Every structure is written in structure tokens, then in C-alpha cells.
């Protein structure tokens, strides 16, 4: 196989980035989605719109703002420096933060839909059986929203694997740290190494197809999916 050591490292790094991002997104996205699904606040629409922004914004916009704000003179940069962490551009942590922004709607929206579909009925029933709110969440909401969590995880993971523009702008192309598969494909194409580009690009294509196929097959088999 004509994949170089750097290519293999890029693939591993991509999987690592996507896994970690998905975990962070589930922890962060669940309360946001829950709040969005249940609230009548006048902030519901503005917050929902902010969460959905990465769907329509070019990744270069997110990348540009992250580059400036995570830099030594930016808001995030000043904060991380005062915490003794230095700046986060050109680091794996920086990529995780960028990816969390970039893939947020892909996790929040399926979760929100799942929570809205459950409605208030099952929770009220749980309350009459004296289940506390946390108890009700873990024993009633989680099992009912399971398909939503599966969709959110798969989409969050796959969308992060497909990330390019943000990484290009804040990554710095460092092998093993920020050189992910999509950037490595760009490097190969730019330098006319088409054989390696084909291997990586073909792999990405196959991966994406399998993920979506699994997701759609899972949907049609489960009636619980609305």
C-alpha cells in the first residue's frame, strides 16, 4: 500500500479528533438540546440560531475567528495564557475546540428532535411515580431518546472527520498533531502525489458512505424513529 507513515498518522489523528470531539459534543450538546426542546424562553430562537450557524457559515469564517481569538491578542488566547496553557492555535486541543463549534448543530439538532418527540407525558408519569428529575432523565428520557443519541454521535463524528477549512486555518500542518486526513489529501493534491491522494480520498469516500448507509438502514428498521 502506498500510504506513507505520515498518511497513517493523519488517519489515526483524524479518528482521535473525531472521537474526542463527539464525546465533548454529547456532554455539551445534551443540556443545550434539552433546554431548547423544553423552554418557552424568548431566547430559544436566538440560541437555536447560534447553534445552527456552522451549518451555513463557510468554515473559513469559523477558522478566521478562531485564529484571531485564540491568538495571543485574542479573547480566548488571553484567557488560556492567564491560565498558563499558552495559546491553543497549532495544537490538538485547539482543533478539538474548533471541531466542537463546527459540528455542534449536527449533535444538538438530532438530540433536540428526539427530546421534543418524547413530550411531557412520560416525564409527568415518572414524576407521579416519585422519580426525581435526574432519575427520570436517566431511566425515561435516555432510553426513549436513544436513536437520537445514535444519530447525533454518528453525524458529529462523521462531520468532524470531514472537517477541512477550520483545521487548515488554525492547524499549521503539523504531522501527528494537527495534520488530519483531509489536510493530508490537500497536501498530496497540491504536490501532485495523486497515488497517495487517491488512497486517502477513496478511504474517506468509502468511510462516509458506510456511515450514512448504516445510519439510514438503522432508521428504517426502527419504528421508534418517529
Amino acid at each position, binding site marked *: 500500500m502506498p500510504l506513507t507513515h505520515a498518511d497513517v498518522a493523519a488517519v489515526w489523528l483524524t479518528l482521535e479528533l473525531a472521537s474526542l470531539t463527539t464525546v465533548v459534543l454529547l456532554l455539551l450538546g445534551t443540556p443545550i438540546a434539552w433546554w431548547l426542546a423544553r423552554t418557552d424562553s424568548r431566547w430559544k430562537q436566538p440560541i437555536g440560531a447560534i447553534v445552527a450557524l456552522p451549518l451555513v457559515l463557510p468554515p473559513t469564517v469559523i477558522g478566521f475567528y478562531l485564529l*484571531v481569538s485564540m491568538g495571543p*491578542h485574542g479573547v480566548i488566547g488571553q484567557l488560556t495564557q492567564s491560565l498558563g496553557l*499558552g495559546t491553543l*492555535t497549532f495544537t490538538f486541543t485547539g482543533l478539538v475546540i474548533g471541531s466542537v463549534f463546527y459540528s455542534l448543530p449536527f449533535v444538538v439538532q438530532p438530540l433536540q428532535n428526539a427530546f421534543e418527540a418524547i413530550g411531557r407525558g412520560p416525564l409527568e408519569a415518572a414524576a407521579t411515580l416519585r422519580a426525581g428529575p435526574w432519575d427520570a432523565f436517566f431511566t425515561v428520557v435516555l432510553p426513549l431518546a436513544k436513536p437520537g443519541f445514535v444519530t447525533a454521535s454518528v453525524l458529529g463524528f462523521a462531520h468532524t472527520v470531514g472537517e477541512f477549512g477550520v483545521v487548515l486555518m*488554525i492547524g*499549521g*500542518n503539523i504531522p501527528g498533531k494537527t495534520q488530519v486526513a483531509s489536510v493530508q489529501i490537500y497536501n498530496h493534491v*497540491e*504536490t*501532485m502525489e495523486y497515488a497517495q491522494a487517491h488512497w486517502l480520498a477513496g478511504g474517506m469516500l468509502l468511510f462516509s458512505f458506510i456511515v450514512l448507509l448504516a445510519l439510514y438502514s438503522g432508521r428504517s428498521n426502527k419504528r421508534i424513529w418517529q
Partner: protein
Amino acid sequence: MRPGIFHTLCTLVAALAFTSNVLAEQVQVAVAANFTAPLQAIAAEFEQDTGHRVLASFGATGQLYAQIQHGAPFEVFLSADASTPAKLDSDGLGISGSRFTYAIGSLVLWSANPSYLDGSSAALMANQYRHLAMANPKAAPYGLAAREVLETLGLSAAVKGKLVEGQSISQTHQFIATGNAELGFVALSQVFKDGQLTGGSAWMVPAELHTPIKQDGLLLKKGEHNPAAAAFIEYLKGAKAAAIIKSYGYQL
């Protein structure tokens, strides 16, 4: 339609036809990113003097080469090295005999911080920075020159893990200008105008530390029959362009 309005319309159409002068043509130029600022200045003069229009696309030399290979509509190519135009020539995509050197580039180690570099390589050798930026050596000749400098100075191993790469010399400059990398290797033309630095601090890298950055231009097959393409190349070789090119720190 009343005759008055009809007459006005005719006059308008005639006026529009005249403003898009029959003699004025457009030339599409692919330009290595380091030459962005001088090219914009030259193009403005050229447009004023000849009435032709310049449509410039800027990118890393390797990236532009790949685009030309795949049928990009460029008519003139201004590379950041000599070997890429030679390759295009032997690929049959250039007009033989049209190759010429339009500038010799200078590499500079630059920091946006006005007190970081003191005109010497001291800060580079001290190795106290978190990130040192350079262009991708595979795609950008200035990146290749930067790598040679690090090798010559025996720093390659020491800076490993601190090196961040821009996809072109423009992105490299942006990493440093935003302060994300404390210092890095860019083209002198990016930080220099009329005999002085436009900001920050720098070390002018001695030319003997790397292979000379001979920047060649080439008339491409697509521009063979475009008089504006030939005119632009002639203009680049002229005294007016030479003065602009030198003002950005290039040798000629």
C-alpha cells in the same frame, strides 16, 4: 416607444460599446503568493498605461502548477522558482523561449513583535519560541529555502515540533502577523516597502544560507494568441515594473 427615449437608449448603447474599448483585452495571470503586493502595484500601472485588464490569481507555486496541469485558464505564470516554469515548458504547456527571470527573491525571518528580532539570528538560535512558521516546502519555494536555512544552521532537529506550516507564503505571513507564531520565514516583499520594514522586526537571511530564489515567469499556451498577455510580459521586463519590483526588496 417615443423617439426621444429611443434616441437616448441608442446613445447609451453606443457609449457602453465605446467604454469597453475594442483594443482592451484581459489577461489571466497565475502569481506566486510572495509576489502579491508588487503584482498589484504593477497591474494598476499596466492597466492605466495600456487599457488592458489583469485578472490575477495568487497561490503557492506547487498549487498553481497543479492547476495549470489540469487546464486552469491562466495565460501567464509568475513562479516563485525557476524549476516549475521549466517543468511546464517541458510539459508543453508553456511557449518555448518565453521564460524569463522577473525577480530574485529574498528570504527574511520576521516577527510581528517589534522587539523580538534584533537584525541577527540570535532569537532563532536561542530557540525560546513556541512556534516557528514557514511555508510548506513541497508547495512553496520560500518554504524550501527556509528548510535549507534551518539545515545549514543545524537547527532542523531542534525546531522539530515547533514548526508550523502555511500552505502558501501568504498563510505563513498570516500565522506570524496574528501573533500565533512568534516568528517565521516569509518573503521580504511581504514585510518590506521602499527601503524599510512595514512593521515588526526581522533578520535578513544571508543569501548564501540557501539556494538563490530565482523567480521565473512564463507565457502559457493559453495566452499564445492574447496580445494582452504578451504586452503584460513586456511590461514586466520594463523599467517601470523594475522600479516597483526593487522597491519591495527583490534583486533584479
